[in-house]
């Protein structure tokens, strides 16, 4: 709370050093241009506030996308820019080919990561989260991020070029009932661990992976913890110990979603045993 007050007091002046970023000398004119474009796009803060507003691709991104489209044809479903990063969604059939194209045509020799996304909203959020200020209230309907999605599950990966310093994020849709994607291990050996992690956390099988087995979790573990319908067990067993009642500041209508009235009602029975918490509220 003290931090918040401090933040308000000290945040009077705001200076944006866009010029400093633009006044950068670099080796590659093309890369410089790309950065400058990205900076210009980032500069007006009003742009950032509008969600879903498409940004134009810069030169490097267009070149990368053109190469991908040339090789994959209609395998490329959708593409978009996210803060200067190219996001390309490819068809599941083209996933392995996308890795080969990235490595050889885009010269992205460096695999940053492969991971999964579960776009389904977590069921426990919303009404149940009342009073738990630590619990961010997420929207209840399923929406998809940059590049879109055909369904709930997706696999995404980021590859980069150590030579040209560019990178691209690739996404592909994964069938919810029988989640599986093609393995990248043959192209990027580092995909091994990332795909094992994705398999145990999201239950996405990778066809062609040499040995899909648990990486982090014990081998007898059941369930896929990073799926949104997998509850955070610590919260199920015991209510969040940091429950506090949030009172709106004077003149402030917009709470953080956890309504104070609901918070009191819920937290009263949740923590009647906890004397310390009662005192603090």
């Amino acid at each position, binding site marked *: 709370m003290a*931090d*918040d007050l*401090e*933040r308000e007091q*000290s*945040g*009077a*002046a*705001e*200076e*944006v*050093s866009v010029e*400093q*970023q633009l006044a950068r000398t670099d080796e590659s004119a093309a890369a410089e241009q790309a*950065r400058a474009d990205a900076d210009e796009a*980032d500069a007006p803060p009003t742009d*950032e*506030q509008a*969600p879903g507003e498409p940004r134009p691709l810069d030169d490097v991104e267009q070149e990368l996308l053109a190469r991908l489209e040339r090789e994959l044809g209609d395998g490329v479903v959708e593409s978009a820019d*996210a*803060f*200067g*990063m190219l*996001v390309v969604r490819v068809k599941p059939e083209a996933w392995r080919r996308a890795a080969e194209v990235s490595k050889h045509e885009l010269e992205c*020799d*460096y*695999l*940053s*990561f492969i*991971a999964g996304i579960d776009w389904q909203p*977590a069921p426990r959020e919303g009404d149940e989260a009342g009073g738990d*200020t*630590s*619990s*961010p209230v*997420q*929207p209840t309907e399923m929406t998809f*991020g*940059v590049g879109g999605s055909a369904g709930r599950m997706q696999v*995404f990966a*980021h590859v980069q070029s*150590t030579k040209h*310093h560019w*990178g691209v994020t690739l996404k592909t849709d994964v069938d919810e009932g029988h989640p599986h994607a093609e393995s990248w291990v043959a192209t*990027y*050996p*580092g995909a*091994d661990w*990332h795909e094992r992690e994705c398999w145990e*956390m999201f239950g996405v099988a990778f066809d062609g992976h040499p040995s899909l087995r*648990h*990486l*982090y979790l014990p081998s007898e573990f059941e369930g896929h*913890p*990073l799926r*949104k319908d997998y509850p*955070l067990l610590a*919260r199920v067993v015991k209510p969040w110990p940091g429950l506090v009642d949030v009172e709106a500041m004077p003149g402030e209508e917009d*709470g*953080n979603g956890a309504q104070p009235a609901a918070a009191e009602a819920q937290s009263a029975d949740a923590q009647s045993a906890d004397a310390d918490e009662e005192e603090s509220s």
Partner: protein
Amino acid sequence: MSVDFAVDRQAWRHLADAQVNVELDTGDMILNLGPQHPATHGTLRLVVRLDGERVVSADPVIGYMHRGYEKLTEFRTYPQVTTLINRIDWLSSFANEVPFMHGAELLMGIEAPPRAQYIRNILTELSRIATFLLFLGEMGLQVGALTPPFYGFRDREHVLNLIEAATGGRFHPNFNRIGGLKDDLPWGWVNECRNTMKVVFDACNTLEELVAENEIFQGRTRSIGIIPQEVGAGYGVSGSNLRASGVDWDLRRDGKPYLVYPDLDFKVWTHPDGDSYSRYWVRLQETREAARMVVQMLDRIPSGPIMAKVPRIIKVPEGEVWVETENPLGQMAYYVISKGATGPFRVKIRSASFSNVSILPWLLRGVYVPDVITILGSLYFILGDIDR
């Protein structure tokens, strides 16, 4: 006695060899290194299959410290996530915070004031120095030299004192806020920092003489554990480990501009060999370079506010952002997906050590057991950074 050993010593030797080979089973042996081994910096278990002293295959077993941070971030608000990500790579906690804060700021369309950017950058480089000084000393320990770690720990303490003086925490500063920093620097800190940088330069010289130029050290690390460029990149090895293989790629210079690195004058060090020694050498040079950067920034640090104008309750607009920074251990990145709520919808944490260690099965094949330890040491991973 029927054989006169004193006359034909050679015969005795052959006889003994033959005897040993007949009676000993020379099949493969499975050896567990760890989970509790002093050379593994934590709980990394390495199952190595040995043929004599030579490693046939190695399988790292991780997850003893898995804390599920990617899941936990979905149950936290943005300011609360700082506490978690502090503990990913606990030797350079401050550097972990920066990319996440930067990502949230990008999504919200705010930018930290210049002074905050400078202080962030100074503390990031101080974390790098602290992390590397520990490595530079500890690497001596991996080859059996007991003195260098003490020098490393001693001089790192000066840097940790600086971080503590500025942030209040030696290991987990939790100092970044979305839009700036918690506090300004304390009085006299800049001068203190400048003095400490002299200590750091001295420490680098000492450790260079003591470790890097040591004949035994070179014998134990040169042409041991060679990572070729394309293999390292394919495995996602990053940071100093990749630069030691001759890849001239540093996100501070080559990535999207962040903090005040574009204004700084610094050299990216590479080494063509890719062996354990070159990884040591590159980190040694980078420690000096980091100290030079800190001195540059201390000269230029502007005055002004340390917090931008941010709402009291932080709601981050819908969007996706990928923020990567050059952390001491390598590429640290967050893929933050926001749905316009007070907390992130999904955070993919891309930690450096995870990929750096995933190369071990490839790298350890065919090396000798004592070299396993030096290779592990020279890759320099933090278990929290692997297990997240």
